[in-house]
């Protein structure tokens, strides 16, 4: 009895710490005053202003575009790389995997500044393209590391069997290998997508004039105080992600029911 109660308390505490900040943010997106210190009444005006704030909307658009393209690119390149790595011999394989880990472990600021110096050195004007390339770069290892375990689980003879049965190598990859490692690929894609949306440091150093994402825009407000429109925007983002998750879960449970 005591044990199950303490278990419950533990669980609720974890959820409390995870979601309390988000809840507070949602509540304050309806606050009449600009200050977070006191509640001065319910308002929807921040939501109205949000849709008139060109700067915030442009940064949101930029963030999403960079996130979608960079995670797609990283997923394609990363999956191909993972398939290649899994077929290597032991020593080079271990070496490549270690090299893949280095960017994951090195601090963002190192990656950001070194990429900036590289772009400056190559005379590529900083802007959308450089930020996109930077995002693809830091997303790549995460995709590779998400796909590799799935390849390890895969029976290596499945591919040979497909070839024996008359499939061309390309056809066998598409029909046999890819479906098997799909969960890993999707994990990699989602990981890359969230990392890209989150990133501030690398984006800051690799973007140029006229192109900034949401993280940069919010951070630049630090001195004057974060605008309450940001609370409204983050609330909307949180709700859309929640809806998306509910939808996915609903469809998955329907699928399993149909199968059963």
């Amino acid at each position: 009895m005591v044990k199950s109660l303490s278990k419950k308390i533990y669980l609720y505490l974890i959820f409390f710490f995870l979601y309390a900040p988000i809840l507070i943010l949602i509540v304050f997106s309806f606050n009449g005053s600009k200050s977070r210190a006191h509640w001065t009444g319910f308002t929807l005006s921040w939501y109205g202003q949000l849709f008139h704030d060109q700067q915030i909307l442009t940064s949101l658009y930029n963030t999403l575009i960079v996130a979608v393209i960079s995670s797609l690119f990283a997923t394609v390149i990363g999956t191909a790389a993972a398939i290649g790595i899994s077929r290597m011999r032991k020593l080079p394989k271990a070496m490549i995997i270690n090299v893949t880990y280095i960017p994951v472990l090195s601090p963002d600021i190192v990656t950001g500044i070194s990429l900036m110096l590289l772009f400056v050195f190559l005379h590529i004007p900083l802007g959308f393209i450089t930020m996109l390339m930077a995002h693809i770069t830091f997303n790549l290892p995460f995709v590779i590391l998400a796909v590799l375990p799935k390849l390890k689980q895969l029976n290596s003879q499945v591919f040979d069997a497909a070839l024996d049965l008359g499939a061309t190598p390309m056809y066998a990859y598409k029909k046999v290998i890819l479906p098997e490692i799909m969960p890993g690929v999707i994990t990699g894609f989602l990981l890359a997508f969230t990392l890209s949306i989150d990133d501030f440091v690398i984006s800051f150093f690799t973007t140029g004039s006229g192109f900034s994402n949401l993280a940069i825009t919010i951070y630049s407000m630090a001195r004057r105080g974060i605008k309450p429109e940001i609370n409204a925007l983050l609330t909307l983002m949180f709700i859309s992600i929640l809806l998306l998750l509910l939808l996915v879960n609903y469809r998955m449970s329907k699928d399993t029911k149909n199968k059963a």
Partner: protein
Amino acid sequence: MKRFFSAVSLFLALLIIVFSAAITTGCGSNGRTIKVYNWGDYIDKSVIKSFEKQYGINVVYDEFANNEEMYAKIKAGALDYDVLVPSDYMIKRMTNEDMLYKINFDNIPNYKYIDDRFKNLGYDPKNEYSVPYMWGTVGIVYNSTMVKEPVNSWKILWNPKYKKQILMLDSQRDSIGITLKMLGYSLNTKDQKQLEEAKQKLIEQKPLVLAYVGDQVKDQMIGNQAAMAVVWSGDAIYMMRENKDLKYVIPKEGSNIWFDSMVIPKTSKHTADAELFINYMCDTQIAYKNADYIGYSTPQTEAKKLLPKELTSDKTAYPDEGDVKNSEVFEDLADSLPLYDKIWTEIKSK
């Protein structure tokens, strides 16, 4: 297979959209363009639109959060901005490193509106590189329901009566600076003994301090969570509007008086258009709009007259010369910077 193809075609379609967008924004108006790099939320955005309309010059406008970041990007040669708005000490550093263009003041007739007190200051002694945009002071904001005695000296921040009710700025230059001022020294001192004394004072003060804070100081003071705090005047105006019990003073020992000024980096290829922009920002109506939106103090004398009386007569926003006669502008510390860094680390780690 079908699904694979639709995924690929979707991907290609996206690519095309994005690249076409990138191309059209890249060489949009074939006319003139200038690039401006300013602090976040530090302009009335309608001003940019009206400038574009009046002169047919396209403005690319970006924002940064602190001087050092801006400096790092410009120094690496990564950016091609035409107008920057750094603070005083950063302007000094950039002139020392020969990064700024000498402005042709013939192209900035509106410079005559800038208050003469704000010309020829330490960071730009001959007025060659910068035009002031906003200015302010550092002082103490206190809650008059919690602090009954008169506040006129930095010493009150060391009064044990207010244990755990004092908020300090999490900024080494400001915190060490006001301590030096309290001790009667210059806040630009490079003297090791004076700095050592300031360090001891700050360590002594530490048990009294509730927290070293940044932006959240505003919410904490408005929410009555502390009795007093060291703040920038611009923030004080906002806090006093939200909480009527708050008062602001510039202590009698003097304080820091700061400027954010417009400069043109040497790398700019559109210096004439940049000067046009700077001149426009000093126009009376435009400077008024900006000061009204931001709430900080404008150095433009005519614009100040347009602002509401209760703001301009408020010594928080517009202290007169007597109030700031002991105050100093930050100078670049150059070789002494590591010493300040070291002292600050020692204080914070105690």
